[in-house]
């Protein structure tokens, strides 16, 4: 029995039944990583020794299978882990060892989850293909000539290729949902403030949110239970009552209203993606839901506003990487300014530099009103538009991306085309609302298609129930697996 093929909830059952120990399970994942990592390049660092120790301790404590106890997982390399490197896939932090634990990692450790290692990403989470990593290019397990999406490409691949029972990523403009879609797994961006950002290396503070990658919707609910919660260290954390997201997950959508918008259809949307959408609509109708047409007015403006706000915040957030206290400092320099210049020139990759420059420009005196201020006004309009939409429907259904995974190197020469792959995901971050991407079938090349459900703030439970219906209608996991072996 290969336990790495099981879902998280199946694995919990196996641990509970005593069918398998956490140690054996962890070893199985280590073996699996050993076998497929050379083809996929998902992990930046592995922690196998401490993982096995940790698994043994959980076995000994006898609570394996409770919550996430004894479950092996992977973390995106932008979440701080004490005593280990946290590189953000950047040269400038290649030697950075965090002196503290991020809240999510500390919580998972306490819950007994077993960390297998830290996974690849676009440098500082800036990108949509994981090609912007300073260290390696992660491949899509469905076709290793294609990108896994990004920026949380390593997180998506680790789950898609059974190299972790679940993983965490971060989503600033689609960085969980887009790679989840491209790799055929479930990925959720929770409501802004639901999961603590303390210890998540900031890209764009007002948009960043940590969320799970899992093999199915039930797994997503289980992981969300573990990571959601108020944290006094994060001032933007929401102090709301705890919800059990696994409760009544199978309730169905009878009588619920599913919103569909023409803005997310038409030109640019791959016909097979549209076909998956149509099938999903039909499935919801069959399940007793009502389909309502909604208008979303600001799709194009959302992308523009997103790149201004995200870059502006990033230009400030990334200013601390100056070679003074930690990280990499240029070897040769003359004087302070030269040290700054050389350390940052050598330490950051091209995309990061581009966004720092864009953001710096947008905040500059004389341009602030035309760019940053306008983008913030746009943000208000987008929030209002979503609020209006959610008066007429419970959740909204859209494709996660207009197309399936593209080839490695295909879009690297054209940043704007790369930015367009976030078109359907960024409005959600701007609004702060939650969204989930789940597999909606395969295209003619056998590449996964992702469908997105968007809900109003703190509607994760409702969204998960709707996702559960769709997942069962599509029966994706039963019909398709990455062909790596």
């Amino acid at each position, binding site marked *: 029995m290969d336990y790495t093929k099981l879902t998280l909830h199946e694995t919990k059952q196996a641990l509970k039944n005593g069918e398998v120990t956490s140690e054996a399970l962890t070893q199985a994942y280590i073996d699996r990583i050993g076998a497929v990592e050379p083809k996929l390049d998902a992990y930046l660092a592995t922690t196998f020794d401490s993982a096995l120790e940790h698994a043994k301790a959980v076995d000994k404590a006898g609570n394996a299978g409770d919550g996430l106890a004894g479950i092996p997982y992977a973390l995106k390399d*932008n*979440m*701080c882990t004490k005593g280990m490197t*946290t590189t*953000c896939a950047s040269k400038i*932090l290649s030697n*950075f060892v*965090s*002196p*503290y634990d*991020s809240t999510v990692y500390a919580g998972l450790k306490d819950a007994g989850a077993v960390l297998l290692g830290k996974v690849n990403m676009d440098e500082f989470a800036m990108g949509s293909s994981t090609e912007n990593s300073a260290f390696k290019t992660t491949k899509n397990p469905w076709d290793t000539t294609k990108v896994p999406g990004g920026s949380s490409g390593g997180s998506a691949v680790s789950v898609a290729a059974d190299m972790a029972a679940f993983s965490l990523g971060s989503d600033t403009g689609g960085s969980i949902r887009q790679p989840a879609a491209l790799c055929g797994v479930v990925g959720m961006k929770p409501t802004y403030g639901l999961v603590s*950002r*303390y*210890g*998540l*290396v*900031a890209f*764009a*503070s*007002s948009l960043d949110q940590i969320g799970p990658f899992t093999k199915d919707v039930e797994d997503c609910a289980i992981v969300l239970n573990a990571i959601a919660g108020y944290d*006094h*260290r*994060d*001032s*933007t954390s929401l102090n709301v009552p705890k919800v059990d997201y696994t409760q009544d997950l199978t309730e169905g959508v009878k009588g619920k209203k599913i919103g569909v918008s023409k803005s997310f259809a038409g030109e640019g949307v791959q016909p097979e993606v549209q076909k998956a959408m149509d099938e999903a609509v039909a499935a919801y109708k069959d399940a007793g839901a009502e389909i309502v047409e909604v208008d979303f007015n600001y799709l194009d403006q959302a992308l523009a506003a997103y790149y201004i706000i995200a870059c*502006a*915040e990033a*230009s*400030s957030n990334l*200013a*601390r*990487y*100056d070679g*003074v*206290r*930690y990280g990499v400092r240029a070897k040769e320099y003359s004087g*302070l300014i030269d040290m*700054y210049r050389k350390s940052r020139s050598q330490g950051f990759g091209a995309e990061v530099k581009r966004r720092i420059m864009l953001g*710096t420009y947008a*905040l*500059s*005196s004389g341009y*602030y009103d035309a760019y*940053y201020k306008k983008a913030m006004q746009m943000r208000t309009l987008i929030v209002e538009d979503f609020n209006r939409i959610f008066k007429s429907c419970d959740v909204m259904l859209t494709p996660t991306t207009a197309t399936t995974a593209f080839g490695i190197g295909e879009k690297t020469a054209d940043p704007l085309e790369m930015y367009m792959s976030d078109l359907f995901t960024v409005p959600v971050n701007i609004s702060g609302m939650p969204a989930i991407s789940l597999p909606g079938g395969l295209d003619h090349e056998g590449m996964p298609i992702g469908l997105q459900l968007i809900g109003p703030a703190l509607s994760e439970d409702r969204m998960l129930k709707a996702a559960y219906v769709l997942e069962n209608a599509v029966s994706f996991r039963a019909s398709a697996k990455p062909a790596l072996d």
Partner: protein
Amino acid sequence: MEYDIVIGMEIHAELATKTKIFCSCPTTFGADENTHTCPVCLGMPGVLPVLNKKVVEYATKAGLALNCKIANFSKMDRKNYFYPDLPKAFQTSQFDLPICVGGVLDIEVGGETRPIGITRIHIEEDAGKLIHEGADGTLVDVNRCGVPLIEIVTEPDMRSAEEARAFAEKVRNILEYTGVSDCKMEEGSIRFDVNLSVKEKGSDVLGTRTEMKNLNSFRALERAVHYESKRQIIELKKGHRIIQETRKWDDVKGVSSSMRSKEEAHDYRYFPEPDLVPIVISDEEIARAKAELPELPEAKKARYVSEYGIPEYDASVITTSKVSAAYFEEAVAAYHEPKLIANWLMVDIPAHLKERELTMETIPFGPSALAKLVELIKSGAISGKIAKSVMEKMFEGEGDPEAIVKAHGWAQMSDSGELEAIIKQVIEDNPKSVSDIATGNKKAYGFLTGQVMRATKGQANPQMANQIIRKLVEAQIGKTE
């Protein structure tokens, strides 16, 4: 051509919170380098700030004490610039929506009262310190990083160095009273920046201003304003243009010099701090802060005059410091002789403190001891002269004045029998004085009194001694005649 001087001020005061503005590191001064740090104030990747509630409370109190309007809604912003003493490469401050706006403070200079407008007060964090040591580099101490500050910005309402100083002193006094800052100049916990320009007398058009930063004593402030206003006037008289720039004040040389011009000024790219939520203060919270404000120096001074009947000058000297005012009040409560107590607090005590390098905070005896001392004089138990010796001993740590008097045998001689015996002896020893008095030289009485005081080591009650001397001398003259 006559010129008017136009001065505006920015005052940075460190707030007296126990912990920093965004983390729980201590704010105490003088710790070993980089020991008061944590991932948050070191600006480590992934950290987030949490605003210290005390900072908001203290800034609110400062605003109320300076007659500002407190904003129900304000927010923090990032001020972006690179410098090694700023680990995040941005200072978290307030830009367009500060916590306090539109205050005013009256100052008195040369008998004239002038209102000085306060534009705004905002909250921000302090930066670290660079230590330039040796040739191989510069060291950074980030202990001060994240120590909370308020910045008080005035209108360009001051017209002279004296006014600038009076304003600065008054603000310091008020901040100290409200307890929001310890205002220790020597530790840099209050710093003054001066914006100064000159204009033709009577003109409405302001001249180009220069800025002098981090003046850290009232004397430096006053001298810098004198120097800079003179320099600008001389430049203008020569037909030169004033350059808008930041100038460095060298307190040793007594000159200011150009640091950087406005053309090289930073674009700080302010934008709202996304990691913090806006600061919302309800009217109830403002009312509560107002109710918690202590009596401010102005009100205290007026009360001392009306309630204790001490002169206005005495009242203003004593209320200059919160500690000396509290000391005064306690002493008066213990023994109700306000004027006598005030005298000690204004003359002898400051002299002793200065000599011994002490302050009112470190004075070795309490207000009840001072009250006791005054009571001893008033009751005639000791003379004023002995009292000075008693105080000396009190500063030497001998404690209770009554015990000191006893231990040194300084009690005033009020036993007329004992005193009479000593005086008889003095008269016997000084027949010339008696004959001088007999021939009409009454000054000789003074000499005899002096001799008696000497013989009693100052313990004779002078009035009683005088009476006895007169009685005995007159009796003797009557006999010989």
